[in-house]
């Protein structure tokens, strides 16, 4: 029952900001409060005037969750600027103070990582009279091959904690083979949340719209925490956290405009453009591998032999000379890298092609650290011959264990 956390933390999908998610909700007929997206303090104050609501929420917009309990730090001094990345303001002056403390500062939350995220976007939203806070989420259940809807009366809090302490407080329903919830599931869920009358009706309507939005927009997660019941019985999505399945981006061109590049690692984007899958880590041994599983296994073996991987890098099945050159360049940009292990098990990829690419790439990027190459599979002997006949300084091995041992030994030498 930790599925929420798994999905929430994952970078599996294309993430968007709360204000963008709420714009989608509005388009889909899911009830939200009036709100304005701002990037300056002046805009925030104008927004306060235009919303004609005495009380507003001033909300930091970053992709990580846990904003309300996060802290803002000044990027220059590192000093604490303000506690809480989401503030309730009841005057124009308060909006000004909070906006100044948020925009241009670094928000660190439980989910943002220790470095936090610079806040460049703000959402000013009209307040409402809250009678109760609920939790509602839709996500892909990989074990049941269906969309899972989860709801709880314990909204506004850390849902992982609820899952841990009172799992019975989380109610679940799955879509059936038609891609919809089975008849009566929405009613049953409303009942288990204790919703009656017009609140029950608006919950059912919202749930129906969310399920069809999840499908039509190829979401991988929609999380509303909190979903609130107002004093007059309306159900309103007071938050939105939406991720899309990137595999389906080709049929949703509108997503491109929603992408916030400042939320993504520049080097990972660059790697992606070349068909590479790269994640930077903290160690000193660069890895270049074909296949995600083998790449992870290579990292594991390096660690078991006493080294620390500097990165995950899967060159993919369509690798060529250009992408391998890019891969070497990206690995060597990392100043911590003191050696590189290439581990190729040829299938569709031919080791001799990789060997020639390595030679060209090393000339182009000026390879200056020890290189160990393990070839196995398709054309491994040819690949080895190409490397050995070249002037490149390289250690060739035939097993993963030998490769890990050799690169760890070579990089320990660098340290000493």
């Amino acid at each position, binding site marked *: 029952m930790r599925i929420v*956390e798994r999905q929430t933390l994952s*970078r599996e999908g294309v993430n968007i900001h709360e204000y963008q998610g709420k714009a989608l909700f509005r388009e889909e007929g899911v009830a939200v409060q009036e709100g304005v997206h701002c990037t300056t303090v002046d805009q925030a104050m104008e927004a306060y005037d235009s919303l004609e609501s005495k009380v507003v929420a001033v909300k930091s917009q970053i992709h990580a969750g846990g904003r309300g309990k996060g802290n803002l730090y000044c990027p220059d001094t590192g000093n604490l600027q303000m506690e809480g990345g989401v503030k309730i303001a009841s005057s124009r002056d308060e909006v000004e103070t909070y906006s100044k403390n948020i925009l241009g500062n670094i928000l660190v939350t439980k989910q943002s990582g220790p470095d936090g995220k610079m806040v460049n976007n703000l959402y000013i939203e009209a307040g409402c009279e809250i009678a109760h806070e609920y939790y509602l989420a839709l996500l*892909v259940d990989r074990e049941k091959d269906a969309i899972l809807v989860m709801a709880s009366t314990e909204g506004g809090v850390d849902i992982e904690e609820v899952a841990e302490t009172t799992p019975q407080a989380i109610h679940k329903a799955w879509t059936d*083979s038609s891609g919809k919830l089975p008849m009566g599931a929405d009613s049953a869920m409303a009942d288990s949340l204790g919703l009656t009358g017009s609140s029950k009706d608006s919950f059912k309507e919202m749930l129906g719209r969310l399920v069809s939005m999840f499908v039509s927009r190829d979401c991988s997660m929609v999380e509303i925490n909190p979903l609130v019941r107002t004093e007059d019985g309306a159900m309103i999505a007071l938050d939105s956290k939406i991720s899309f399945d990137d595999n389906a981006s080709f049929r949703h061109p509108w997503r491109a405009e929603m992408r916030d590049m400042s939320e993504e690692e520049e080097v990972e984007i660059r790697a992606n453009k070349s068909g590479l899958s790269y994640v930077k880590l903290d160690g000193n041994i660069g890895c270049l591998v074909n296949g995600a599983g083998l790449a992870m296994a290579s990292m*594991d073996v390096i660690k078991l032999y006493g080294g620390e991987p500097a990165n*995950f890098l899967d060159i993919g099945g369509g690798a060529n000379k250009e992408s391998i050159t890019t891969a070497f360049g990206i690995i060597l940009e990392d100043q911590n890298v003191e050696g590189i292990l290439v581990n190729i098990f040829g299938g569709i990829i031919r080791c001799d092609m990789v060997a020639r690419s390595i030679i060209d790439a090393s000339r182009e990027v000026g390879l200056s650290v020890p290189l160990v190459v393990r070839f196995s*599979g398709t054309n491994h002997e040819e690949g080895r011959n190409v490397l050995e006949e070249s002037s490149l300084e390289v250690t060739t091995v035939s097993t993963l264990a030998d490769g890990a041992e050799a690169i760890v030994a070579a990089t320990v030498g660098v340290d000493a």
Partner: protein
Amino acid sequence: MTEYGTDVVGGVTPGKGGQVVDLPGRSVPVYDTMGQAVSETNADVTVIYVPARFAAAAIVEAADAFNEIKGEGLIVCITEGIPILDMIRCIAHISEMPGIRLIGPNCPGIITPGENGGCKVGIMPGYIHAKGRIGIISKSGTLTYEAVAQTMSVGEGQTTCIGIGGDPISGTGFIDCLAAFEEDPETEAVVMIGEIGGTAEEDAAAWAADNFSKPIVGFVAGATAPPGKRMGHAGAIISGGKGTAEEKFSAFEKAGIHIARDPSKIGEVLVSVLIEAGLREP
């Protein structure tokens, strides 16, 4: 595939029906639809390389053709990057056809080595395999080849190697494969390769503890992967205490599966397991 010995009887590409393709040692016809292809050739298996955006529809077309014409069939889908909801719809569709089995997507396929060549449906390098008594199941592509190389390094061949793919939503899972290996008299031990993310490994371990009588050697890739980061495969993500390599290893141990924490030691562990089970001379 034909070079390895697979009996390829035809191909399907819409708009290219009527053409003939020359493969090593034979020429085969191309059809416009799976329905025509299955009717004309009586094929048992199809392998799908269709681009991601059309792949789920291709799986459904193949399933319908096999189901209507023969009532059974095996579909192997190699394609990577199929939209998740397409796969959910696709699995829902074929789950109503008891005779249809899907392997993948995003997998290297399935291979059964024979005395000389064998049957290969996929993209793995055939020559690294040899006929033997070890079954291999893996979520990963190239890591499956590594497992094969490990068994070969200790003089053991394979009965069948199945790459089930690392996508969040896929067809045949670990348990389906274990059940098949339990039934297969030629398989005497199994190597199972998992990956971080999801709970398929834990579920399979729990199932195996009650239902699987042969020794299993297990490895899970991604012990060093940081939480919350995507590691290439859409499925390979860990976070928040579920789906970590450590949890999967301990689920394996609890179920009596022999673990190899070092993937380069899978062969060694396999040897000790076979000796322990009295299947190999010390």
